[in-house]
């Protein structure tokens, strides 16, 4: 049967193209990683130093302490984790209601989704003014609330898709067995949705962790997050390459690890559940 099927070889062109694309993906990452451990004297060398003879950690020290990277890191951790917990818990409840009771028909779910596509600039101007009025400007609470709302479409729609593919009959069995609606949600639906909740949490966290625009406008000296620290390196043409790279590594390593871990939920995460992964 199989004998007449020609064995497929991977054509050489295909390998070359894939290799080139991988190089394109990896080049910036490699350069950032190498720059972060390169002594400052190597910056200007011609030809460029592809790998430093004497790797150094001084840039990490400077980035974290001299440029308040550590403070940004801590703020980012506090704000991202808090916003993730809030967004996913509030979003999961809403998603459950939308998926099981079709609450508000299509209008409500579409309204939530549309939040995802509003241009941030339109929200941020009045939000900035209001935050100043009520004293939330440059506070952790202000950032947490803002990030919670800005990630709600992601958590709601990811969980919405997850609940919809879960059979209803399990919760119905729980209702007949003697649970209240809350009981069925808490002791049956939630444990079963746990993998989806974890995936939604990771995507929400990454969204908060990598966000720049809101943080740029809503924070200054107190609640600034890691990405906004990069502003500090703009004015010094080149002198802080090592520090910028070190900070980049500190920021991107955790989110890449998390992202690759929940890779199989990636399609659902990127399309807000419109496509099953």
């Amino acid at each position, binding site marked *: 049967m199989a004998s007449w099927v020609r064995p497929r070889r991977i054509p050489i062109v295909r390998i070359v193209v894939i290799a080139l694309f991988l190089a394109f993906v990896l080049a910036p990452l490699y350069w950032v990683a190498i720059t972060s451990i390169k002594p400052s004297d190597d910056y200007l060398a011609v030809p460029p130093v592809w790998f430093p003879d004497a790797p150094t950690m001084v840039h990490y020290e400077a980035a974290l302490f001299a440029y308040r990277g550590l403070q940004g890191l801590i703020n980012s951790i506090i704000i991202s984790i808090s916003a993730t917990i809030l967004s996913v818990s509030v979003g999961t409840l809403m998603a459950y209601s939308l998926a099981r009771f079709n609450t508000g028909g299509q209008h409500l779910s579409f309204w939530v989704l549309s939040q995802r596509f509003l241009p941030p600039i339109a929200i941020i101007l009045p939000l900035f003014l209001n935050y100043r009025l009520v004293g939330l400007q440059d506070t952790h609470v202000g950032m947490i609330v803002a990030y919670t709302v800005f990630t709600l479409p992601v958590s709601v729609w990811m969980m919405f898709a997850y609940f919809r593919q879960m*059979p209803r*009959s*399990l919760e*119905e*069995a*729980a*209702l*007949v*067995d*003697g*649970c*209240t609606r809350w*009981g069925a949600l808490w*002791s*049956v639906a939630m*444990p*079963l949705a746990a993998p989806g909740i974890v995936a939604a949490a990771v995507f929400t966290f990454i969204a908060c962790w990598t966000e720049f625009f809101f943080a740029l406008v809503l924070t200054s000296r107190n609640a600034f997050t890691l990405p906004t620290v990069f502003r500090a390196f703009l004015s010094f043409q080149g002198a802080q390459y090592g520090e910028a790279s070190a900070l980049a590594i500190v920021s991107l390593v955790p989110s890449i690890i998390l992202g690759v871990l929940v890779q199989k939920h990636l399609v659902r995460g990127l399309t807000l559940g419109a496509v099953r992964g």
Partner: protein
Amino acid sequence: MADVKIKGLYKRYGSFEAVRGIDLDIPDGEFTVLVGPSGCGKSTLLRTIAGLEEISGGEIAIGGEVVNDMRPRDRDVAMVFQDYALYPHMTVRNNIGFGLKARKMPQPEIDSRVDAAATMLGITALMDRLPRQISGGQRQRVAIGRAVVRNPRLFLFDEPLSNLDAQLRDEMRGEIKRLHRDISTTMIYVTHDQIEAMTLADRIVLMRDGVIEQEGAPLDLFERPATTFVAGFLGSPKMTFLSGRMVRVEGAVTIALDDGPRLPLPEGRIPDVADGRAVILGVRPEHISRATGPAAAPGSARLDAVIEFLQPTGSRTYATFRLGRAQVMAEFEAHDTGRPGETVPLDLNLSRASMFDAATQRAI
């Protein structure tokens, strides 16, 4: 233990009416089967009894108590679902005990009840496994155990056997029948399978398009179907419908089949309809036998027909004949058949066959 009384029940989804004015009395302890083609409203009816669907009109009473606005948990009913609906994150033991725990029963009593139910269903060896680690038939037992352990006043089954293979289905059918014999609680069972309905039911409620087409004891429905729909739904192979007209010839009343022979109707089986009226004769395979004696037996009509083809099943053989414009199937002894193309004399038992008015499709 409780009876169920349903009055004028309606269930609408938007403009679609899934259940349209159902009245049904189910006595305490009876095994009632709701049967019908898919989309007939049988599952919806069951789910309204469980409280999983809000009703749009009418009344449901369980044990004399109107439960229209009562939550499922307060109705004291148990339900076995088509996909078993076992909680995948709980062991078999916790699955069975979950309902008792949700009702805040003390743990020692839960344990003893769960063990008793497990013993009864022969699943004691599986108690610490997860649902995904056991077979389909075992899952079904666990699902039944989860219902039994609660000792509810009413059992609801929603096509519980449709996910099992044929052999397991036969086996579980027997188990459910035995369960009802042992605990004699009221049971309502939904299926689209007429064999399940016939074998399990004390009473069959046959539904179509959201209304009850006919209800009654299985053999009553089988032998005296009220409509062609009921007649066609119950029985396998299906009843054959032959259309014809009432014709009175020389005092005898006959049915003249379209393009076919005239069949004289026996005394006591003569319907009260006008001469020339279009009727439908419903014939089951067992109503036709191979003629033996010189003349037709009383109540039967003798005719000659050509065998078109044969379908042996082992114990019986089904022979298909052409009669007028229609094909008709007869049930023969396995070897007593003849060959395709051969003309054989047949006795058609008209006193057992059904007759319907062609215009109304109702029995006459």
